[in-house]
């Protein structure tokens, strides 16, 4: 007896689908369910239905709204800088052609380094007193005192300092994707534009970037989602401090749960965070990507 193709396809997909249902969908369901309860952090403790109370508490708390804005700012900074640097490197590699191959490989290495190691490393470079960056800037005559900039201790700039390892780690990713896209721009198109007298900026903004648009969209969405989830690098550098100035959404939810032992509130925050991510991602996909119009 032969089963139909459709059955066979289903049979092949079922294990993976079951896995995702049990280990992703079910925990998500628990998260949403928990967000309506006031839960004691102790195992076997009380669990009282409180309706939307946790959501009201989340939106009323300055920590939550602050973390929301910080996550947004952090994501924008990381993705923008990464895109600019990645595009610059990709153009550089493209203009050098085949001879840059070894360097492209070298440029990829940070991608293999654990974020926790990258965070640690940059903390060591930026830390007050014996951080190398302050000292080098001082020796170069830019700073009057090696500790003039409190990279990780000044609440005004710490959110941008903790973004540096993230940018360092993943600019290569952006570069790689954009480089791949650049390879697919037909050479004669560029030649023709050059013959028409197009200069470098016009070439970049009128021809290269529009042609790269689908690739750029993918890169921005993928990296945007990742940057908005940043946790490791920030935790190891500042643990969200000083004065919560680098506390992004993942850190706040983690601390609400672990430190302050409020699973109900943390679940409500997690639910809002998840919905926010999905909403932004779908809007991004729908507007930048413009499905259908590319074909």
């Amino acid at each position: 007896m032969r089963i139909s193709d459709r059955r066979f396809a289903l049979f092949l997909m079922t294990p993976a689908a079951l896995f995702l249902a049990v280990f992703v969908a079910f925990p998500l369901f628990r998260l949403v369910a928990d967000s309506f309860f006031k839960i004691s952090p102790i195992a076997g403790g009380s669990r009282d239905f409180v309706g939307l109370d946790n959501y009201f508490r989340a939106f009323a708390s300055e920590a939550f709204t602050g973390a929301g804005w910080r996550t947004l700012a952090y994501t924008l900074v990381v993705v923008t800088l990464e895109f600019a640097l990645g595009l610059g490197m990709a153009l550089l590699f493209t203009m050098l052609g085949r001879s840059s191959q070894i360097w492209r490989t070298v440029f990829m290495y940070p991608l293999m380094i654990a974020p926790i190691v990258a965070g640690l490393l940059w903390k060591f470079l930026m830390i007050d007193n014996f951080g190398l960056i302050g000292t080098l800037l001082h020796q170069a005559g830019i700073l009057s005192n090696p500790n003039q900039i409190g990279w990780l201790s000044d609440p005004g700039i710490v959110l941008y300092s903790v973004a540096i390892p993230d940018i360092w780690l993943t600019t290569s990713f952006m570069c790689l994707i954009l480089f791949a896209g650049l390879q697919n721009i037909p050479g004669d198109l560029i030649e023709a534009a050059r013959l028409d007298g197009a200069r470098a900026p016009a070439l970049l903004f009128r021809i290269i970037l529009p042609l790269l648009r689908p690739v750029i969209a993918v890169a921005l969405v993928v990296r945007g989602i990742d940057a908005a989830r940043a946790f490791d690098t920030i935790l190891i550098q500042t643990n969200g401090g000083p004065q919560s100035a680098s506390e992004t959404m993942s850190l706040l939810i983690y601390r609400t749960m672990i430190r302050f032992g409020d699973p109900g509130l943390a679940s409500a925050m997690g639910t809002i965070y998840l919905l926010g991510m999905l909403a932004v991602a779908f809007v991004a996909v729908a507007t930048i990507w413009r499905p259908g119009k590319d074909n």
Partner: protein
Amino acid sequence: MRVAETSKHDGGTPATAATAPSVPAAVIPARKRRGANREGLEAGRRSTRTLLWTLLAAAMVLYGFPFLYLLFTSFKTPIDTIAVPPTILPREWTLENYANALGRNGVLASFINSIQTAIISTVLSLLLAVPAAYGITRYKTLSGRIFIMAALVTRMVPPVAIGIPLASMMAAVGLADTPIALSIAHTTISLPLSIWLMSSFFEAVPNDLEEAATVDGCSRLGALWRVVIPVVSGGIAVTAIFAFLASWNEFLFALLMTAIRSQTTPVVIANFQTQFGLDWGSMTALAAVYSIPVILLTLLLQRKIVAGMTLGAVKG
């Protein structure tokens, strides 16, 4: 890209310009234009090229420096590590930090945990992703299309949102603080990407292959196992590397789901800060050691990794 790809599932129309960044072209692009016949964006003038090389050299030095500094620091004496002002090279080279870091209680065990977790997660991810991706690409059913989109949505779920319910689920079935529990958590991250990667590899396999095999009397599963799987073994290798790396470098689930018995090295590195004061020398040494296997792996398989990276991003 994804959208363009799925429309391909419908009618099998050839890739349009929008689906252009296909991997082989991206990875070995300049091959075709050997020698002096430069075209397109490649710079021709000697002076321009000199300038570009200078820029590239500067970027590389800046980019590579942080990791080199980590390496140098790991060879400094503990006092030198936090000297004011700091020096770039060690005044005196020593292996003391390495001895300290590796000799510490639980550090070697954490390495074993990391390896175990990453291997289990990689195997699990492949066992689930390979058949699923084959089912999706070979039969193009509606359920397949829905499933691959659902898998993509999983990529947007923040680990912190499912980490805690997942941890309590594991505790409920008696798997708390085991490499198995952490491997499962890591598989929730690597499975969606593995499905997307494997789908694109299967997409490249012509259907005639297993049709010939079934005519010869192979069952559908037999054809998959004996004919199709060997053809995509390169793709399976790429997928395995990514699953392994994802688990090896992961921190949040490891922090939430492990205690003493199953702690992985990233968690131990993070704990150095609180438990032992700021022992920078040992921390940098451990961080360097933890990066070695991955750097070796990358050196060995760099071309495959670039291929997978480009594909992974373009597809999912």
